[in-house]
């Protein structure tokens, strides 16, 4: 079990360094164990956005923390070859440039995996292959419109 965990840990670190650098250009990322006990220690996450000091993830700004957490969670899902990624409004605390980088990374993943996003953000919407607009024209009842980006048609579905 210890050997397996060590290998998984090393693999995740590599994947995390990749995803974090894509989201935070020239950024560095690391995962470490807080103590010597491989099976019991806490897992520490350290990141260093460009030009800043290497610190634990929890000590950064709202958007910087979100970026680091998302990078590591995506790394974990990549390592387990998740066939689907579902994300509900995780772009809310991110600025425009970070959203662009997140979108680019997800577009990269979408070649092999399915990606479902919920968003209020225009750029995220524009970057997707298909959009479903949900409304409550009739109060309290959800209705769906499917908006096709390719032919810009609005179709009522369901």
């Amino acid at each position, binding site marked *: 079990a210890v050997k397996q965990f060590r290998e998984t840990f090393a693999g995740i670190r590599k994947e995390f360094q990749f995803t974090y650098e894509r989201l935070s250009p020239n950024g560095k990322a690391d995962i470490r164990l807080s103590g010597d006990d491989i099976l019991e220690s806490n897992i520490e996450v350290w990141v260093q956005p460009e030009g800043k000091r290497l610190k634990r993830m929890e000590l950064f700004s709202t958007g910087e923390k979100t970026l680091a957490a998302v990078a590591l969670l995506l790394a974990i899902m990549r390592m387990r070859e998740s066939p689907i990624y579902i994300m509900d409004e995780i772009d809310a605390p991110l600025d425009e440039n970070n959203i662009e980088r997140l979108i680019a990374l997800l577009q990269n993943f979408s070649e092999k995996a399915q990606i479902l996003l919920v968003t209020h953000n225009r750029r995220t919407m524009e970057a997707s292959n*298909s959009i479903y607009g949900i*409304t409550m024209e009739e109060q309290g009842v959800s209705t769906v419109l499917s908006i096709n980006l390719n032919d810009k048609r609005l179709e009522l579905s369901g």
Partner: protein
Amino acid sequence: MKLKEIKLLGFKSFSKKTEFKLKAGITTFVGPNGCGKTNIIDAIRWCTGETGTKTLRAERVEDLIFAGTESRPPLGMAEVKLVFENNGGIPLDYEEVEVKRQFFRSGEGKFLINNTPCRLRDIQNLFANSGFRSAILDQQMIEDFLISDSDMRRELLESIA
């Protein structure tokens, strides 16, 4: 494994029969606050075996059934159907796998795989290895993940092996 279709009927705010035929690539769901976007994600969780009412944002299981509005009466059943294209991700001998879950106000729950009745555990086992349940990221999960001394990080890492 690919999710091809999501069908809702009577699930939370989706009183009307609603179908999503998913295309390749990135699919986004958009709309005003409270219109039902997260409800769709709850439906996916529920139909793949989620039982935690807290995770599903319901105080009691009946809260998953359309509760009615001023102009529409409550419904008696909530149903969610998910259709998957199976390219190895699901341990069954079908190319297409349809998972259906129903819950009735009487308290009865039904579970079907390709229209064959089964138990909840059978549905949960289908998705146990695919990491489906931890494939859903939201604000809450990110916050829990940011708590430095919780077991969550370790559990996620161990689930990869």
